[in-house]
């Protein structure tokens, strides 16, 4: 088996192709080949969630997803959320406003999972929302304001007043 393989995929809306090492993770490909450094490495074995990206709209830990599996997929990273004019998306704005960011290292992964949750269009209960966010570890925030940021955005999208 050849050690390298040509991969075609869409990253943040742009079609790309690249020779990748068949042993490389999607994290490695996104960071090293495309300089998408929002994709963070906290454990590299799928425990912490820092490397989370969306693959065809579904959140995955990119550290345990091989780069070669990305063939034909649509991949979205945090870099893709910023509008072309540099405007933050609603979920990013909520993270900023709710003081949900401290060291910032787990934030890209958390926000991408939040995007997956919000894009379902469902209004989840607090318990459901906590369960959906539980694949991410954070040591700075106690998850308190992260939870608020996601919940606030969810309620805003439904045009509902929020009661924390």
């Amino acid at each position: 088996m050849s050690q390298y393989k040509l991969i075609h995929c869409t990253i943040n809306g742009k079609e790309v192709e690249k020779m990748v090492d068949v042993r490389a993770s999607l994290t490695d490909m996104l960071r090293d080949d495309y300089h998408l450094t929002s994709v963070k490495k906290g454990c590299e074995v799928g425990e912490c969630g820092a490397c989370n990206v969306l693959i065809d709209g579904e959140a995955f830990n990119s550290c345990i997803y091989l780069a070669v599996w990305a063939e034909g997929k649509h991949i979205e990273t945090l870099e893709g959320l910023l509008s072309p004019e540099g405007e933050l998306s609603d979920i990013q704005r909520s993270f900023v406003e709710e003081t949900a960011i401290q060291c910032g290292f787990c934030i890209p992964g958390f926000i991408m999972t939040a995007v997956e949750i919000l894009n379902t269009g469902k209004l989840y209960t607090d318990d459901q929302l906590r369960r959906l966010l539980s694949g991410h570890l954070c040591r700075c925030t106690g998850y308190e304001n992260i939870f608020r940021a996601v919940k606030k955005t969810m309620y805003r999208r439904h045009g509902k007043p929020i009661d924390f």
Partner: protein
Amino acid sequence: MNKVGRSEIRVDAFDKATGRTKYYEDRMPAGALYIRIKHAEIAHGFVRRVDTAAAVAIPGVVKVLTCFDVPEIDFPTAGHPWSMDPGHQDVADRRLLNRHVRYWGDDVAVVIAENEVAANQGVRALKVEYEELPFVIDAQKAMEPGAPQLHERFPNNILKHTDIRKGDYQAAIQEPGLICVDKWYDTPTVQHCHIENFGCYAYEENGRIVVVSSTQIPHIIRRAVGQALGRPWADIEIIKPYIGGGFGNKQDVLYEPLCAWCTTQVGGRCVRLDCAREETFVSNRVRHAIRFHIITWLRRDGTIVARKVDCFSNQGAYASHGHSIVAKAMGSFPQHYPCDNMECDAYTVYTNRPAAGAMRGYGMPQASFADESNIEDCARAIGMDSYEFRKKNVMPRGFHDAFTGNTNYYDTYRECMAKGAAYIDFERKKKEFANDTGDIRRGIGLATFWYNTAVYPISLETSSNRMLLNLDGTVTFQCGETEIGQGADTAYAQMVAEAVGLASYRDVRVKSCQDTDITPTGLGAYASRQTYVAGFSIRQTADILREKILKYANEVTRQAVGCMDIVDGNIIRKEDGIILMSLKELAMTAQYNPVHSEHITAESTYTIRNNAFSFGCTFAEVEVDIPMCKVTLKNIVNVHDCGRLINPALAAAQVHGGMSMGIGYGLSEQLIFDEKTGKPLNGNLLDYKLSTILDHPHLEAEFIENPEPTSPFGTKALGEPPVCSCAPAIRNAILNATGVAIDHNPINPHVLFAEFSKAGLIQDDWREEEK
């Protein structure tokens, strides 16, 4: 308008929300060589030989270096400021790589390779021959005669012993009718678990060594790298970019010296050393496991007559921060619940475990677990309500500590407890929960703590900074105190805006990245010092800058310096308040004046010779499922007095994070070691139970804002305090629910099963049936 006291958005929030913020690995130069460490797979012994032949033969491997190649220099790793007094310098007890292996995971060799795969293969190909020795992982066993010895200079493995004597303990306990509560309390080894693992890279530039590191303490690292390599300190330049959390682990010299030495071994080429999560758990630093023996003598009216406290601190293999941690823990007892007769002894003991260093709270989470458990047990022993018992005995208003100069200026403890009790509805719930008798029982508990803000007078407290007036009237600000996630840069921006007289904290450009060649010297992020100590130097430098601005304004406006002020970015005349000119106009005029050009800047150092008590408490409410041995935390509140809040939203966020760490300490976190081999068993984020969002209820952060009189901004410690009192409050709530006092944390289902069985709350029917 005030710039401090407002919940402003963090200065780094936008970049962090967009993933632009650059951490060390995001700045990695292309082509950096990979360093991988060969960690020992025995707990104690000597390396006899390292066979490197197979590793060297792997394509891509550039160099293999072993413990037989390193400079014969012992160096210290504690992130303490240098002391000019040799007696106060940190213990130097390790080398870059060690022939004498002192714990499972010690560093014995490195492979440097062109890529990660080759480096990992190289490490696996190394054949290390050991002479194995018996090992010891328990602190008290390590003190026994005949125990394995870790360091020749420290007989019985005792790194240090200190004591406190007050009054006459032996005479006091002769008083007839005293009640004695004599108990042991034990705390576990835990790890910081910042989400960014430690890492760094190093290269040579014009004959000097540059290290870019994920550290809290760049200026201290520079000195330590110089020491370890035997190079002049000024030969070393440390650059600290944004870091993904530290919590004290990165307040230690980790692998910066090894990385710096490796670059010198490959002709100055860039080398990178990235710790894996598993290495972070075992081969960085951990929190000291401290065991306490507390004997408290009480009168029936709740008066504490005498106390004896013995503390045994498990240092692990190397000194790191060493005795400072348990000394701080022990020192908390006589001040927290002052009594006239005390005998306290603290021992720091080497064992064959990972080296323990600084971790958020620096001995206080351990002390608080023991002290607040014992106080609860004392109240129960005399049938007194523990809240009343605390109110009677806790450090009173006016209490003064002569050593630090700290004074308890307010009745803070009682104010904090009252606020916490009101939030959680303490009195009503206590009565209601007392009726629970079934399988599921509810309980409520509390605990308090105090914390020193800075480290004066134990160590030097110094803070320097620089302010540059920019052409648009904004101010660029640089200081040695570091942003590690807590929001320090934002607090500085608010304080600078207030002290200089700018319109907004957004008019302050904080240079977050420290470079020891450029940044004014500061000590970094540790203790809970930064906002407090930076406050002194910010006020001082701002005064210098203001004086220069107004002096120049005098030339332009012909108004007397004393008649002018700087308010909201304008120079005004004080008497009538008219705006004479904006800071932007002044900056442009001063810079481009063909007769008298001046770039207006200021820089100063302030030596802080003050310290401040910070206070607080936790109330926790639990539901205990007795047959399932399961605790659910239903409600928790922390109340803090950290003086005036510079940024209330950031302060609350800081409290949430500390509470989360405290909850993990109380209920789930523990690094476990194999008794037979000394091997750590759960050094990964799957088996080490870090709290997830499902493990917390809402975290309530509340404050009592009693301004700290010694601080120019009325502020004091908040960074570490939130972690201190959570675990004992949870322990006391479980005691309140079940009547079972559990004297070691974490209180997980394994522990509860054993304790509930012992207490007869559950019967082991399954085993009975087996018979």
